């Protein structure tokens, strides 16, 4: 049984082990598995962006896919037709566009709270969805293709799948590490305070609106980064990337993993991908595999009913059942650690 004081080390060891495993995978895994893991890592970046809002600040955003989609569309629309774009300006442009939309949406929707906030963020994401869906700007419902993938001089060519894997892994590590540091900073503590009791934070002299808006914009930017990577990986974008099913999926990932922990987003993204692959598998379900979302829906319902603390809470749940002990969870509320 793990001692209380050793717990942070165990968490850190878990996260480091995951990243080492991901770094070693290209040497053993086949093409299909590698492609799936690349996609899942992109979803993990996306999930981390939402975790910053939902898990760390207590803002339930139901329109995160809008920022993801804007990053993705930016990557395709701003790339030249026949030439490779330079990462040097394309990446900042895409991330910036997503952050800019997040600034506009956040400034408006943060005037509301609770269930209003959920609905308003969803509605603004739908607005962005209809812009690309109904106007010729983004190729309409058919979507558009990215002809040549961006490069960084002659150093990095994202068209090469091995290079792309490394870049995605590095981005995931950077986002994870950056957020872990951020949540330990004064800014991160303020966000945790807002989540616990916003009224009290205001009374203490924090302008909570500014903090929440900053978190919202940062989360939008990270989602934009994930969207950019997604578009470059597939070389294709369609309006579904801004759709509310994606917003819901990413929410499910972080809940499945466990809210309030960055590693929850990581675990959740991989668990969700595995679950999806499982229900889509024709080897197991045969002809029934095309109704995969039935199984997914039932799993989500079961997860809400049985695992309110997510997969991160499973060890604690087992300990409670096996040893009858229960650790105080206050530190989990306040502590936004890895």
């Amino acid at each position, binding site marked *: 049984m793990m001692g209380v004081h050793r717990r942070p080390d165990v968490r850190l060891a878990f996260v480091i082990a995951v990243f080492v495993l991901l770094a070693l995978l290209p040497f053993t895994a086949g093409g299909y598995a590698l492609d799936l893991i690349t996609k899942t890592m992109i979803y993990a970046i996306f999930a981390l962006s939402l975790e910053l809002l*939902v898990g760390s600040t207590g803002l*339930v955003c*139901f329109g995160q896919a809008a920022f993801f989609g804007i990053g993705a569309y930016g990557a395709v629309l701003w790339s030249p037709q026949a030439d490779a774009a330079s990462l040097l300006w394309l990446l900042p442009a895409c991330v910036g566009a997503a952050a800019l939309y997040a600034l506009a949406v956040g400034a*408006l*929707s943060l*005037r*509301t709270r*609770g*269930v*209003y906030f*959920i*609905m*308003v963020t*969803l*509605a*603004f994401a*739908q*607005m962005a969805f*209809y*812009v690309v*869906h*109904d*106007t010729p700007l983004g190729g309409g419902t058919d979507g558009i293709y990215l002809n040549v993938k961006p490069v960084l001089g002659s150093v990095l060519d994202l068209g090469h799948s091995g290079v792309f894997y490394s870049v995605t892994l590095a981005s995931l590590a950077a986002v994870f590490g950056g957020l872990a540091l951020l949540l330990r900073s004064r800014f991160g503590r303020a966000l945790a305070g807002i989540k616990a009791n916003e009224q009290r934070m205001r009374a203490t002299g924090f302008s909570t609106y500014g903090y929440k808006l900053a978190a919202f914009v940062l989360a939008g930017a990270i989602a934009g980064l994930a969207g950019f990577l997604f578009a470059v990986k597939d070389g294709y974008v369609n309006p579904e990337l801004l759709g*509310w099913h994606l917003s*819901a999926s990413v*929410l*499910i990932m972080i*809940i499945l993993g466990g*809210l309030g922990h960055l590693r929850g987003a990581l675990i959740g993204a991989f668990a969700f991908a595995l679950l999806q692959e499982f229900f889509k598998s024709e080897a197991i379900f045969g002809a029934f595999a095309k*109704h995969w*979302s*039935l199984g*997914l*829906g*039932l*799993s*989500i*319902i079961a*997860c*809400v*009913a049985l695992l*309110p603390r997510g997969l991160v809470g499973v060890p604690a749940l087992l300990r409670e059942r096996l040893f009858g002990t229960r650790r105080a969870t206050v530190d989990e509320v306040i502590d936004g650690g890895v």
Partner: protein
Amino acid sequence: MDLATFFIQCLNALQYGLLLFLVASGLTLIFGIMGVINLAHGSFYMIGAYLAYALAPLVAATFGGGFFTVLAIGLVLAVLLGYVLEWAFFSFLYQREHLQQVLMTYGLILVFEELRSMLVGDDVHGVPVPPLLAGTLPLGDVMTYPVYRLFVSAVCLLLAGAMYLVFTRTRLGMMIRAGSAGPAQREMVQSLGVDIKFLYRVVFAAGVAIAVLAGMVAAPVSSVYPGMGNTVLIICFVVVVIGGIGSIRGALLAALLIGIVDTFGKVLLPQAAGVLVYVLMALILLWKPDGLFRAG
């Protein structure tokens, strides 16, 4: 736009707005009294439309009856569905956070959509207008207006009126109003001897029935297609946000407003029609972050 066209568009706006109101009123009622945000509410509208499509041949074969028998049977099924769903899935959500309610009801959407796909398939279907209401009314010299659309508006108005009477004039309405004033009031209602669980179940079943009815009535106008529930759901969110959560009056006003903006937007600014409703919402939020009417 000449006067006759303008008049026709007004009638269309009214019909669309009233239909939205029916679906949104169930959503806002369920949130107001139970504190549950129900994403699956759009699915009930979808289920209604598919019931109108799937029940018609069955009813014609067994009763030889027409559209109104289908409506009656559909309503009974809807009340049963609502009652069972509340018991099985929603009764333990009341104490949970909004986030978990969102997830659970999203899971239900996936289940409903897949069941629909397995039972009826993914094709788009038309539902014939009942022969009794298939005529048109002349408007001016050249224009005509279908009677069925007027019938839809009339049904919606009738239901809205009935809801108003139930709320203001009956004991049940009084309990609902008391229960939807907030969590503290909910406890108060309970301690006065009202069986709140039964009240919840009744309100939920009524909300489901109204949404299913809206779907059945709308089916001949809008046709029946996969994903129709989701489109309605998100517009209904906008209605609820503009109107103020828990407020039936606000929902009516907001639904009519959206009916007008959407209908005339499609005529005057077809490129931006999809976005206009959301722009309206943004403007109203700038002005009144809590919606036009606060719950009460």
